[in-house]
């Protein structure tokens, strides 16, 4: 049998993983994943998921949260890996980004109380990254001051679960730079519509802001700069959880391709005995194992300042490219059967390729890592 290369998790993280697996394996299946794009509501019971701690790991205890280990982001990544491995739909990544952001708001900010509802699964939120620069399909949301009111205008496409979530954390360009606002879905002037996606295991939509009145800007820590540190942290968290989603999906896709190579026969022997395929699988295995290593590195890098942003982007860029290559390699190993609707291969290829582009694609992250390198700044200055 193939050797599984896993570094044992801490016991509480292993319990979290097992509980997540049990829940997902009874409540979800790749067959159901094929129909997600046709549904109008969250296919999974998010309150049940919330009880497992899916939205709690990045929230403080006083707001109903709490991690199982000393690292909330590491715990969230454990769940994130299972999301990808089992093609779980729903706003796991974006809700966690919003939970983390709102948890860091100052004590007097009443938007902190929203965290409690998000952690409990009573409501959901998504992070609208248009304007942060990470979105490949960049929308253009602006915030302008009119008669003492802040009005949002513009469109943000390619937002996961845009048509169903209750809250949006919107990043908009104002006269002073980038600002962030928390907007409810029933806000006057806000409309959403479904979009088509390569990834049918999740739903995406566009949000239109037509003079939507926004409350005060969210400021988790006062600071200057065109793109403030709070947005950089959100990019880091969204990236790390997307990396975990990719690694989970890569791990499963590779397992399936390897099993196919070991059992499918041609010319009287398993196709996995042909050196052309063995070498392809060895190279693909390297992509997978290196991606696991980079996932661990990215988890460690969160909250690491400039060096942390560099390392997270290094990981996102590498894993994004590797995810697509792995999906393509596995496709090649499966041969004709990989083209059939019944086979899961296309679901993983769709998910991996979409993850690779979400929250900044590989080339965007290569640029970001250079932006955070003090030495590179010297050079270009």
């Amino acid at each position, binding site marked *: 049998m193939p050797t599984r290369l896993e*570094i044992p998790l801490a016991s509480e993280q292993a319990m979290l993983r097992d509980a997540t697996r049990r829940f997902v394996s009874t409540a979800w299946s790749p067959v159901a994943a094929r129909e997600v794009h046709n549904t109008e509501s969250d296919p999974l019971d998010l309150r049940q998921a919330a009880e497992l701690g899916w939205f709690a790991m990045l929230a403080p205890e006083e707001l109903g949260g709490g991690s199982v280990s000393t690292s909330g982001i590491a715990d969230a990544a454990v769940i994130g890996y299972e999301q990808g491995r089992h093609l779980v739909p729903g706003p796991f990544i974006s809700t966690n980004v919003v939970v983390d952001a709102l948890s860091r708001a100052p004590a007097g900010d009443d938007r902190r109380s929203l965290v409690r509802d998000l952690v409990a699964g009573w409501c959901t939120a998504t992070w609208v990254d248009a304007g942060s620069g990470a979105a490949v399909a960049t929308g253009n949301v602006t915030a302008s001051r009119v008669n003492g009111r802040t009005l949002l205008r513009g469109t943000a496409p390619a937002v996961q679960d845009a048509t169903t979530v209750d809250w949006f954390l919107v990043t908009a360009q104002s006269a002073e730079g980038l600002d962030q606002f928390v907007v409810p879905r029933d806000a006057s002037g806000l409309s959403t519509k479904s979009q088509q996606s390569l990834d049918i295991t999740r739903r995406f939509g566009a949000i239109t802001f037509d003079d939507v009145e926004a409350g005060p800007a969210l400021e988790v820590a006062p600071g200057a700069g065109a793109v403030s540190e709070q947005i950089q942290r959100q990019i880091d968290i969204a990236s790390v959880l997307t990396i975990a989603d990719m690694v989970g999906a890569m791990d499963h896709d590779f397992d399936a391709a390897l099993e196919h190579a*070991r059992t499918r026969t041609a010319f009287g022997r398993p196709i996995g005995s042909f050196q052309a395929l*063995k070498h392809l699988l060895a*190279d693909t295995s390297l992509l997978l194992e*290196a991606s696991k*290593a980079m996932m661990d*590195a990215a988890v460690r890098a969160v909250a690491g300042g400039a060096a942390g942003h560099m390392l997270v982007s290094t990981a996102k860029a*590498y894993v994004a490219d590797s995810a697509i290559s792995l999906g393509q390699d596995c496709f090649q190993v499966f041969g004709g059967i990989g083209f059939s609707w019944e086979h899961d291969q296309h679901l993983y290829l769709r998910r991996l390729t979409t993850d690779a582009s979400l929250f900044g694609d590989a080339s965007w992250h290569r640029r970001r890592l*250079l932006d955070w390198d003090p030495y590179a700044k010297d050079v270009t200055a």
Partner: protein
Amino acid sequence: MNDELSEYRDRARRWLAENLRRRELGDADDLRNITPGLLDAERDLQRLVAEAGYAGISWPKEYGGQGLSQEHEHVFQQEAAEYRVPNFGVLGRTTFGICVPTMLAFARADFLDEHIPKVLRGEELWVQFFTEPAAGSDLAGVLTRATRDGDIWRLTGSKMWSSGAYYADYGLCLARTNWDVPKHRGLTWFAVDVDAPGVTVRPITLITGESEVCEEFFDDVEVSDRDRIGEIDEGWTVAQTMLAFERSMGSRNHGAVVTSPSHVAADLQELARDLGRADDPTVLDMIARAHINDVVFAELTARMTALSAAGAADASSLAAYPKLAAGLFTPERARIGMEIGRVATVVWDDDHPERARVATNYLTARGRAIAGGTNQMMRNVIAERILDLPREVSFEDGDGVHR
């Protein structure tokens, strides 16, 4: 335990500060073109370190080592990183990182009694006599013959690609002792005195014009049976252990800690700046790609070391991952240097040694994809030993090596 280690660290730090000089910019990373005079100075330095008890830190006490843990060894190497420690070039790594660990695992006590203290004092440097002209990737295809003659073995044959053999004192030589069994089963290791009658060492000039590697000819060389390492015909088992030491060395690099590069490919950025290409988006993307591979290699190595320590699989199979990564990344990185350099790294003036380095690097980088196991061999190791895919069909006779 932690107290004891930090006390050890303090003591080592004091000794280093009082006895060795700090590394300076002009100090070579790796000694090359070694002459006897150069070697004598390094041997003196090694004796100083050994007499203070900082050589063979984790080697057994009975052979002159300190009998301390790997952690102690690691602590000393961390502290010594800033100092000008003995530099024996490639043979330093071969002797201390490959040959002695292998001998400690397989050689007889009286043999170790005689040789290990000399190694510790810098009096003996060891080389591997392993690869042959007709046995590269097919390492077990060794044709050098050892024939028994009472208490003596007679060696005849030739070896190739032996790094640093021209200044070695002893070599660990793999020879065929049985021609009637499958090729992996008839091999035995011997310690050979490089100055013994019948041994000829010739340097091989490489593509860069340097000659750190050699070829050797053995013409009826006498070796005592006491200098046999491991059991007769069991040499392949010894070789596996040796290869695991060798593969893990690339990443251990004298046992230094593996850390991710903290800023982006400084050498390539400097080259780009020098050529006025520092804000060319194509160049920036290439530099970022090189950096990503640098970080991936470090993180992958750390992960495989941890998996190895956790017993997930055998060390030499796990080491195939970083070895393959290095074999893919190194030539790619060298090529990026040439792409940034454009014509400036194919034609340059004498006063641009940094451009010459980029060009030389381009020529040598392919070595990481070949030496110590080719990329293709690493893929076979991963496919067969980790992924458990079926072995290749063999076209060799199962009943012996007929040549």
